[in-house]
């Protein structure tokens, strides 16, 4: 289930990017949402989780960014935040939504900082806020749908996860 969910999210990111423009408020970051949803299914086996998200980050780099070890690094950093939030909060729909929002904001901020530091161009803070705002709506909806689906599936097939 973990792999299937991540792969579906991964491909949806690529497919929808063709139809959804960066200027709209429906920017997909489904792979990142899936990283939040799958965390409890690793049952506190953080090492396995980090190995998995590092691989997803590397594939994300190669397929969509033409880069190496860029999203790889960001995904591992996000993994720390997801792990910490899951350690502090109990696992339910609302905390998953909160974690998704925090993760997306962090992802956008890290990308913004990297672009700002390393690219020969100045970007405005308002552009960062716009990119965060554009990324929230669709991903929150996706988070709710995927959370409900995984809940139903894990109950049906008695898949263990940490609470």
């Amino acid at each position, binding site marked *: 289930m973990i792999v299937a969910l991540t792969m579906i999210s991964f*491909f949806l*990111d*690529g*497919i929808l*990017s*063709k*139809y959804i*423009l*960066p*200027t709209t408020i429906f*920017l*997909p*970051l489904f792979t990142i949402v899936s990283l939040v949803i799958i965390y409890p299914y690793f049952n506190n086996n*953080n*090492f396995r989780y*980090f190995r998995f998200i*590092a691989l997803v980050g590397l*594939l*994300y780099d*190669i*397929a*969509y*960014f*033409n*880069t*190496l*070890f*860029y999203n*790889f*690094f960001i995904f*591992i*950093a996000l993994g720390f935040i997801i792990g910490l939030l899951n350690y502090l909060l109990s696992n339910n729909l609302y905390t998953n939504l909160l974690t998704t929002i925090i993760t997306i904001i962090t992802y*956008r901020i890290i*990308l*913004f900082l990297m*672009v700002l530091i*390393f*690219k*020969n*161009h100045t*970007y405005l803070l308002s*552009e960062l806020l716009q*990119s965060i705002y*554009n*990324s929230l709506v669709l991903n929150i909806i996706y988070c709710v749908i995927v959370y409900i689906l995984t809940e139903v599936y894990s109950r049906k097939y008695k898949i263990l996860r940490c609470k």
Partner: protein
Amino acid sequence: MYRKKQKEKRKKIIIISILVVSLIIGIIVNIAIPNRNLTIFEKTIKDSILTVQKVVSFPIDFIVNKVNTNKEKNEMYEKYKELEEQVKENEKYKIENEELKKQLEDMKELLDINETITDYTYVNANVINRNLDYWSDTITINKGEYDGITKDMPVVIGNNLIGKIISTTTFNSTVRLITATDVVDKISIKIKNKDTYVYGILNGYNKENNTYTIEGISQTIKIENGSIVTTTGMGDIFPAGIVIGKITGINTDNFDLSNVLEMQSDVNFDNINYVTVLRRNI
């Protein structure tokens, strides 16, 4: 218990080490070598992922195309009337074109000038996906090295320049659009000003107004709004004569020394599904 703690500690150290190493490698690979070629490993993985994506997206593309086709069908009669008028015009241009072609050949021979747009073969391609990174403006197309596509080839829609190839795999290529705000390359352009050409440099894109900035033009030169902007062919990447857009505004720089022009493209960059790569004839 102690051993378990030690094991956990070791795992944490491994994760942090991977993070630090990946950050360093990431910076070196992506920042220090920004125009690097993809490795065979990357090309193979990218091709495999995009092939799966093409298969997965087939039903979605099919539905979207059907909807678009139906929309176009409804507008067909009006388009037909428009085209009928254009065909009449075309006859006139055909004769003119033949004459101009002959003249161009003579001139090329006489002046030994650079490549022009006629020295290129058109390779049509479909857009597979757009950039997921908010800060760069790229698209991925379904033609790659197998179709003769190489780095730096210009990409157009109709006769309008939209970008250039920045990386290729065997079956796919990535195009950086000219709307990208992180573009380092400046494009040499010329503006048709009555019977003469004025030369300048396309320098950046303004997201808010959807306009490009053209610099390097003396304030003494009067340029009219609506003037056509084309590539000059200098710089060996873009051939001469590709339309980029039209002048929509004329301002001066901070020191009142030169003109800063605003240009708008005819291409709708929000809706790019099919593009053409200009492949050099070798």
